[in-house]
């Protein structure tokens, strides 16, 4: 008997005055006790909608067709109260974002006890507790915090969510999900917001729980690496449909569906070897070249030389100064025309260093030498040679500008003599360069998909024909298949424009695919630096080894 089964489930969202849109179409799926089933899919594939339907968490404007069976009873038409009896005690739910899923004004222990009280209330005569009962609940709370892998539960118990790190908050959410002693855990991207090392710990822990308690787990993820590493069965979803279902090895070696193969191909962690650039014909970019002006391109050996750069951020809270060393005597050199990756977990100071190189933040001490030039450049001169691409294209592109205006804005600022019509021509050329159809020239950034918007940001960065482009987590927010396309595009452009990339990322898989050299950062200082192949293939430092080991899917080969 399966814990949870979907049979031919269809889900629509209705909106006033619009055609209902179908989010899930004809999905059948079952989770058995002790089994880990993962649903893999990119954004918009309906995976979250599907699992939320099983516990009655869909918004009121949804319509469900087909049969969903929970504990062998069909949930169709269940009231909130009826669902409430199953939530927690039969199904535990781990939400996606640990940052917003906990009540910020309540201590952790109290939130966990709320969940516990729900289960332990059963069979009691009085609606309130007594001392012994409270003691019992508190002991249980400690037990579940420990079970979720949090050391020293007594200390955590009294803390507020903002005092904990993301990984600890995620563990608290797991503790709450486990507190009802459920037979089934549903986890919606439980580790997507976390660093790889923390992700590995949490996934390891879920594995242990599954073995010890024999619960079934339904895990939703966008990361095929995670799924291949952990799951008994993998369900690949796209546009609301199941396109493929099978065990890890079946998916890995015998994927039948084209989309699954594309996903496998795109998953950076599964690859060895670097992306090879394909040649792009740049002759069509004549106008843009002319507009950018024939400024002298640097010919020095190293495009970027960073020497002993330090930066400390100081914040004052309640009269007490807190200082964080974001960069501590960081040094590295980037060869002209090469890609240098800065890798590290959150808080390692990679973005700070990138911003110092780009001149967006001033360093406390140390020197940054660009293209062999020692003198400080003005903003205008600097932007000729160096451009910055942000992580989130939607926030780095003005939402009120059209795509054509966005990509030519640097030219407008630098060359006042180029008219509106010429700029439009240049914009179309630049869009050609990043392989974005001309029809998008009139759209606004908000109307584009993430991948398209990031293409616009890249086109804009290239409009002035710079030597150096800094990519600050430029592909991290994208779906894997889109990410792979953008990386390939960047590799192509690098060869065509002879660009130097400073590539900031937390994803070692991407580094392997894309970078010539890499510096591993931790807490503001460089742990290890060198050739990508030698650093990743033969790491010298413990921390680098740990990072490499944590990349999901890294031990698998296609």
């Amino acid at each position, binding site marked *: 008997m399966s814990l949870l089964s979907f049979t031919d489930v269809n889900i629509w969202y209705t909106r006033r005055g619009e055609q209902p849109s179908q989010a899930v179409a004809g999905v059948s799926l079952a989770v058995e006790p002790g089994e880990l089933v993962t649903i893999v899919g990119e954004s918009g594939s309906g995976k979250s909608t599907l699992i939320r339907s099983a516990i009655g968490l869909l918004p009121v404007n949804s319509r469900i067709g087909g049969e969903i069976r929970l504990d062998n009873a069909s949930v169709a038409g269940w009231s909130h109260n009826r669902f409430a009896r199953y939530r927690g005690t039969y199904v535990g739910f781990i939400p996606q974002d640990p940052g917003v899923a906990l009540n910020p004004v309540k201590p952790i222990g109290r939130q966990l006890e709320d969940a516990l009280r729900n289960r332990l209330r059963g069979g009691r005569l009085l609606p309130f507790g007594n001392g012994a009962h409270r003691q019992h609940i508190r002991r249980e709370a400690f037990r579940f915090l420990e079970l979720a892998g949090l050391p020293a539960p007594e200390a955590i118990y009294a803390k507020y969510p903002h005092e904990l790190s993301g990984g600890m908050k995620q563990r608290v959410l797991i503790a709450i999900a486990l507190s009802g002693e459920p037979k089934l855990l549903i986890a919606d991207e439980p580790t997507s917001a976390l660093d790889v090392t923390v992700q590995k710990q949490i996934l390891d822990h879920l594995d242990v729980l599954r073995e010890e308690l024999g619960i079934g787990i339904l895990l939703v993820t966008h990361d095929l690496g995670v799924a291949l590493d952990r799951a008994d069965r993998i369900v690949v979803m796209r546009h609301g449909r199941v396109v493929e279902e099978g065990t890890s090895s079946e998916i890995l070696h015998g994927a039948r569906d084209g989309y699954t193969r594309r996903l496998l191909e795109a998953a950076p962690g599964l690859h060895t070897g670097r992306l090879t650039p394909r040649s792009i014909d740049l002759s069509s970019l004549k106008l843009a070249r002319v507009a950018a002006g024939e400024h002298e391109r640097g010919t020095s050996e190293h495009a970027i030389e960073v020497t002993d750069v330090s930066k400390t951020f100081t914040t004052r809270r309640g009269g007490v100064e807190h200082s964080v060393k974001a960069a501590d005597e960081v040094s590295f050199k980037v060869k002209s025309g090469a890609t240098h990756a800065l890798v590290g977990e959150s808080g390692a100071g990679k973005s700070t260093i990138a911003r110092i190189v780009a001149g967006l933040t001033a360093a406390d001490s140390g020197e940054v030498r660009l293209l062999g030039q020692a003198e400080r450049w003005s*903003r205008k001169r600097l932007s000729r040679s160096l451009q910055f691409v942000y992580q989130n294209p939607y*926030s780095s592109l003005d939402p*009120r500008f059209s795509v054509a205006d966005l990509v030519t804005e640097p030219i407008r600022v630098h060359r006042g003599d180029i008219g509106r019509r010429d700029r439009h021509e240049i914009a179309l050329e630049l869009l050609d360069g990043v392989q974005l159809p001309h029809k998008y020239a009139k759209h606004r950034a908000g109307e584009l998909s993430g991948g398209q918007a990031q293409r616009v940001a890249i086109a804009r960065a290239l409009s002035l024909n710079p030597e150096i482009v800094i990519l600050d987590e430029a592909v991290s927010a994208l779906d894997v298949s889109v990410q792979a*396309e953008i990386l390939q595009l960047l590799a192509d452009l690098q060869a065509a424009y002879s660009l130097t990339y400073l590539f900031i990322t937390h994803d070692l898989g991407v580094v392997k695919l894309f970078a010539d050299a890499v510096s591993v950062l931790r807490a503001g200082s460089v742990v290890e630096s060198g050739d990508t192949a030698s650093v990743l293939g033969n790491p010298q430092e413990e921390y680098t080894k740990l990072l490499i080991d944590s990349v999901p899917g890294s031990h698998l080969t296609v």
Partner: protein
Amino acid sequence: MTIRLDQPSAADPPSTASGADPTLDAATPSAPPRRRFGVFHPIVTQPGLAVAVLVVLLAVAFCVIPAAFTWMNPYVPDTSAILAGPSATQPFGTDRLGRDVYTRTVYGAVITLTATLLAVSIAFFIGTALGLVAGFVRGIVDLVLMRVVDVLLSVPGLLLTMVIVSALGYGTTNVAIAVGISSVANFARVMRAEVLKVTQADFVEAAASIGTHRVAILLRHVLPNSMSSVLALIPLQFGSSILAIAALGFLGFGAPPPQPEWGLLVAEGRDVLAIAPWISLFPGAVILSVVLASNRISRALQPVRGL
């Protein structure tokens, strides 16, 4: 290795909200279809808003072409019909000089709404400029401007306008200026908050990093992106300005008596409220409905915040 780009955006999530691809709807049973209303759709789904827009349009029409809505003269007394109740020919009745209250209300719109427009324009332009400068320049300028705004906010609005009118002298224009100045603070506050938010955005930094001049950043990036909340404030301020101007007219600070200003119309019926309530009630109801309508429009204009 290379990654094929021959099917470039096939895996891009669809950019439209309707999500699922069209073939999918055709192949599977679709949810029950809904009735549609074509161009009348917004009216059917939001009838309150439609009525509000209609009321405001009517009031504006009163203001622009009053003669099209009545053939009577708002100033000429008619001794044959003093304090006559509402009837088919005189829907709002007549006042104690026999003038048609409906006609006076229509012509009153010219005075009241023009004054309101002036007041809101003053508040909007001065307030937005102050907020923009304070939010963008920051530092000591911000500190000084915002303390001035705090002072304006700390005095009750009507009291402040009465003080300003007393200083400037009576009259509709002066009332409008006074009401405008007293609501500068609202616009300045909202604008500053929006500007602070927008200047944090990456695209402002991106514009600065390519060497854009500060003024150009302000006008091209910050101003357009911070206007939406301020624009939603305009109809709201419009409603409260009508109220403030009518209140001052009622108290006798505004237009002198023969003029049919709305507040004055209500005041004229004050003494005879027991025997001829229509003189005060109908202009009052008109004021009420225009204010309500503009508030409703303001709510519809508010930028939709994310979840």
